[in-house]
């Protein structure tokens, strides 16, 4: 419990530092929001008026605390770019709330695919005494890791969409309309995300298992008369998972933050695409919140990894 408290304090402190850094960074980089919003309609009077409306005339410190204070109370601000309708500004919370389920579902499906395929594959690979299988897996994983994700996305679209006609590429199904169809549609971008990660995870697990297989306790297990399968799944796997967990953590953090390229290829309205478009249009309130979100995700995932570490390896918590 004490451990948990410490972790939470660290999380909060990190978020503060990152929020301040993000805020300061956007003060420094060139480009004016007001001209960007008004575009060709800009006149000095309208610019001054908008500046006043957005509170941009206050000193940076005041604006930072106003913003962060709002965030703490659940008010994430309003987008400069998007509008609900002619008279109403678009709250950032709503904007992100729209996109989040897409990215999170995509991440969850990808993660399940990665774990379900990579672990048995890694174990199989570590066990393979068969030289042909060993070499084949080596080549296949190497190739899958090397293919850029946009190209893999195109391949998946082509194979499953055009040839096998499993889904209609580009014809995104909203989760509000048809949850089942939505999840099915996500299966294909998830595949594009998962394939290289499966290859990396399997490779990682295999190497870790090969190291563990040299350990003394493996010999002990064999001396008891354990079958190879039992040695692998009953003894080696759990010990070999330690580095793999860290690696999976990195992957999770990456895909939960939004897979920009894959979202683009499959035209998914996710966090990744939102981030890109808000950066290019200087929609700073959105960008800043997204930065906080990504920071939070990364720290939170590492926190989970830490907990999982303790569950898997009892030696850690007693140190």
């Amino acid at each position, binding site marked *: 419990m004490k451990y948990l408290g*410490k972790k939470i304090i660290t999380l909060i402190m990190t978020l503060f530092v990152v929020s301040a850094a993000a805020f300061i960074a956007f003060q420094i980089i060139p480009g004016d929001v007001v001209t960007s919003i008004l575009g060709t309609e800009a006149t000095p009077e309208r610019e001054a008026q908008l500046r006043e409306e957005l509170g941009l005339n206050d000193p940076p410190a005041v604006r930072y605390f106003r913003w962060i204070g709002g965030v703490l109370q659940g008010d994430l601000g309003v987008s400069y770019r998007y509008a609900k309708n002619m008279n109403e500004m678009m709250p950032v919370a709503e904007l992100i709330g729209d996109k989040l389920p897409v990215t999170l579902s995509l991440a969850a499906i990808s993660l399940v695919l990665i774990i379900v395929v990579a672990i048995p594959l890694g174990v199989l690979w570590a066990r393979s005494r068969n030289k042909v299988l060993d070499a084949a897996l080596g080549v296949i994983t190497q190739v899958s890791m090397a293919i850029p994700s946009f190209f893999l996305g195109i391949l998946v679209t082509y194979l499953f969409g055009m040839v096998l006609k499993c889904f209609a590429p580009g014809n995104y199904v909203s989760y509000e309309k048809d949850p089942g169809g939505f999840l099915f549609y996500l299966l294909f971008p998830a595949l594009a995300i998962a394939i290289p990660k499966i290859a990396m995870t399997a490779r990682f697990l295999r190497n870790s298992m090969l190291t563990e297989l040299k350990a003394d*306790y493996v010999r*002990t297990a*064999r001396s*008891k*008369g354990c079958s190879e399968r039992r040695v692998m799944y*009953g003894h080696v796997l759990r010990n070999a998972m330690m580095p793999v967990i860290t690696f999976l953590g990195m992957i999770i953090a990456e895909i939960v933050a939004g897979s920009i390229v894959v979202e683009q290829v499959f035209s998914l309205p996710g966090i990744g695409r939102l981030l890109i478009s808000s950066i290019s249009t200087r929609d700073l309130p959105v960008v800043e919140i997204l930065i906080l979100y990504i920071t939070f995700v990364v720290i939170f995932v590492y926190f989970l990894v830490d907990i999982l570490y303790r569950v898997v*390896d009892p*030696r850690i918590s007693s*140190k």
Partner: protein
Amino acid sequence: MIAIEDLSVNFGSTEAVRHVSLELRDGEILGVVGESGSGKSVTALTLMGLAAEEATVTSGRILYDDVVLQEAGKPRDKALYRKYQGEWMSMVFQEPMTSLNPTQRVGRQVEEMLRLHGLPLEAAGDGELQRESDTVREVSHTGQSGESADTGRAGKIRQPRKQEKRQRMKQLVLETFASVGLREPERVYQCYPHQLSGGMRQRVMIAMAVILHPRLIVADEPTTALDVTVQSQIMDLLREINEKQHNAMLFITHDLNLARRICHRIAVMKDGRVVESGTPEEIFEHPREAYTRNLIEAVPSRMKRRAAGRSIGREPVVTVRDLSVYYREGNNSLFSRGRKKPAVQDADFTIRWGEILGLVGESGCGKTSLSKAILGMNKEITGEIQHFSSRPQMIFQDPYSSLNPAKTVGWLLEEPLRARGKLDPQQAMTAADIRTAAMDMLEKVGLTEDYFDRRPSQLSGGQRQRISIGQALITRPGLIVADEPVSALDVTIQAQIMELMRRLQEEMQLSYLFISHDIHVIYQMSDRIMVMKDGRIIEIGDTEEVFAHPREEYTRQLLRES
């Protein structure tokens, strides 16, 4: 019962075992003694069917009763072996820490034996173990061949309901824990290996090996990694098990004296061959081979003590006053520092110029904490340490891990001089001078110049330890802290390194703080000895005096056990 006939095992083109023949009868303890690389462990692992994949049997065969377990030219039959492993033959390994799965509770690990091979009939009954039912198992086994071993197993397993069966399994594990001398079996059952001491872990390993009353137990250096007092308890336990269960035992060790204590017969191995075998009396009283004589004599307890009456200076090289050393428990973080715990309390002693002070004690007694404090590697201290010589240096225990494998021997020897030059520009030397000094040092530690460009991986353990010593001496310090410098070495090499350390001590007028858990080694080396227990120095005095009239009960115990 077991016959190893003309066995040869190769790793690639190197012959690890050459034409070894050994026989083992029911209830007999056969000791196989030899130094590292003699092929004793490979023989044992081959017998157990656990040798590495690269190991191939090139001649001979292994028989269990009359079943051929392994034969030259045929691949190992893993399925056949699995019927024997665990149930009819089991193994106790050297390193109880690494030989247990670190992420599984030990109770579960021992219970796996039962899950794999089923509950013995007697345990499925009322839980009390009886010999008679064992004979039933043996009868069912004498039908031979893999298949009948199967029926034998089917015969003795009852199939109680799952819940009940699990309960009985746990019960049997707890009973076995108690019978191998583990107090609080319930608590141990729930522990992970790292929560137990070395001795307890080894008892768990033994419990695992004996729970099914196998007819053969292979014990590979089962006490080497343990403290002396624990060592002696484990030896007693093994003897006791042999007397109770009448298992045959193959006892592998590098220590002839240890083999003498429990073995009925001893075979001495060298370079993959059995060079001599016989009863312990025959081996010890009439060793036929020079090698065997060497082994007997190299044991520290048999070595001559260094001549007394050398001149020891009066001036101190270091004085330690009221020293307490602390370590922090738990990890340091931004929010909290670990709790301070004393590792050493109120240490008070002096080492004089040219003196060797031996420090003896069991693992965890604070020996290493004390030595680190003296070297200035631990700042969490109270009290006072005053040095009267330049930077003291250290010789480490494990020459395999303490030398950087990526560097050459020459580089390693030069490094301390370069480091000193950087620290204190006045003492900086030219590259040529440093090289000359390193060459001189190579010669001093008994190696030739052509070792200069080799890497540690190309050296033997003894040679590496010589490099380690050279590294410590090259800056010409007054005081050397040697932390178990010979513990990782074979006995004959041990003797050579001790000899080298003595010679250098005299030539260079060094003082040693010589740390060892081996009271014989301490006796050989030290002018005075200091005994530590639980962080305190409980006895300090002239070596002869302490050995003749130990004041403390603990010292007496240490002397008795070894």
